[in-house]
């Protein structure tokens, strides 16, 4: 059945991305509304993710929708052996839209094929997390005033980091120059470097992480280097402190440069960086609210014009 689900952002057109960013901008101007009055939004988290769930639920609540769902798969019938299909079909009877996080890859795609209502992918295993990508794009747009021709530096775990892969693909429309800064064990997979070559995206790889390397950055996208990703713990010990951003490294960086991070952070950004005007990861997380408001409304068939001329805005 054809619904307006959002499963991936990888194949989204430039026009559609800009359209959703403009809608998110409207929600930033006026966050509290009743545009979803009478709607029921289901948040089904088959894998716990507090940050993402709270963001989706806040987005729905601030637009006047009611929220049902579960935050912990242990309390659902999935543990009794119910299939995903049965859960989705059952919830489709109650809700107008489903925002779902699942530990299996492709779960949201499958749900979108069987459900009579729209599905929003809130993360499916290591595969896609389109609302994160949209909020990253929104944050870049907000801080730089454009998405075009930017120098984007990605740091840390570029091998398993789903967010960096999706961002890389979504940026293909905007002529970016990427710099990949990672240890050998966690460097950008060939698959994505091939993608860059096919799409004519410029990139450079680095192993060092210092002021000199990042001085031309417009965006510094930090990710966490996780111990469990290493087969060789000696290697982890050797590199774990190399990819930490410290405040003194920011001297000499561009004035417009902003530091992003999908959060949660552990130690990869020193705490004194938080005070720098370049630190932008908390605002980035806040943008998740506007991006998700735009996604929910778009999937429910509410247009940008509806959002602009919305009579339900709460002052």
């Amino acid at each position, binding site marked *: 059945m054809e619904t307006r689900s959002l499963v991936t952002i990888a194949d989204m057109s430039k026009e559609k991305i800009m359209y959703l960013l403009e809608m998110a901008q409207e929600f930033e101007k006026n966050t509290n509304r009743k545009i979803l009055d009478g709607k029921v939004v289901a948040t089904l988290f088959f894998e716990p993710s507090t940050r993402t769930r709270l963001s989706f639920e806040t987005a729905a609540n601030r637009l006047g929708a009611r929220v049902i769902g579960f935050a912990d798969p242990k309390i659902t019938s999935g543990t009794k052996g119910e299939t995903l299909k049965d859960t989705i079909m059952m919830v489709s009877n109650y809700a107008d839209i489903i925002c779902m996080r699942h530990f299996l*890859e*492709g779960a949201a*795609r*499958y749900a979108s094929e069987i459900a009579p209502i729209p599905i929003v992918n809130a993360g499916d*295993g*290591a*595969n896609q997390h389109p609302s994160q990508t949209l909020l990253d794009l929104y944050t870049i747009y907000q801080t730089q005033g454009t998405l075009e021709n930017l120098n984007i530096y990605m740091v840390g775990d570029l091998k398993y980091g789903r967010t960096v892969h999706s961002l890389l693909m979504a940026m293909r429309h905007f002529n970016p120059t990427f710099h990949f800064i990672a240890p050998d064990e966690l460097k950008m997979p060939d698959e994505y470097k091939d993608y860059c070559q096919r799409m004519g995206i410029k990139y450079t790889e680095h192993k060092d992480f210092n002021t000199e390397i990042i001085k031309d950055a417009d965006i510094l996208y930090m990710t966490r280097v996780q111990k469990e990703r290493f087969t060789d713990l000696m290697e982890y010990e050797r590199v774990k402190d190399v990819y930490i951003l410290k405040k003194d490294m920011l001297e000499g960086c561009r004035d417009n440069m902003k530091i992003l991070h999908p959060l949660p952070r552990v130690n990869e950004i020193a705490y004194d960086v938080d005070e720098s005007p370049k630190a932008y990861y908390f605002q980035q997380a806040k943008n998740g609210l506007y991006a998700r408001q735009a996604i929910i409304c778009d999937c429910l068939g509410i247009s940008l014009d509806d959002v602009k001329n919305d009579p339900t805005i709460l002052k």
Partner: protein
Amino acid sequence: MKKELQVAALENGTVIDHIPTEKLFDVVNLLHLQEMKTPVTIGYNLESQKMGCKGIIKVANKFFNDEEMSRLSVIAKNMQLIIINNYEVVEKKDVNVPDELKGIVRCSNPKCICNNEPMPTHFKVTDKIRGIIKCHYCEKEQELTKAQLL
């Protein structure tokens, strides 16, 4: 010297030729030939100028449709279907890789939803020459010839 046929001639039906010997029984299983009621001749380890060693299958009174043909493409490239009518070759068809494969091979990703739900698998063929398929669900790519048949 008289050249002897290694397998008896067929009056009406289909000959599947140039099957890699080690894939012969995969073809049998894939086309469910063991369930056929008409005569089926299976030749194994036959000499082939092209391949050195090959398999051949002759199925009497059976003509395969496009869907069955595309299933065959999963097993090996360069196989050929020869349509026989009244002992005459009326058509030779090369087995081509289709654009999509539904319910034919298994996804190699254990964390893919299609390995964890009662649902058909679905692949897009992303590179016909190199034989690369991409799972419609988990988006992982794999090699067609290494894919496990369902």
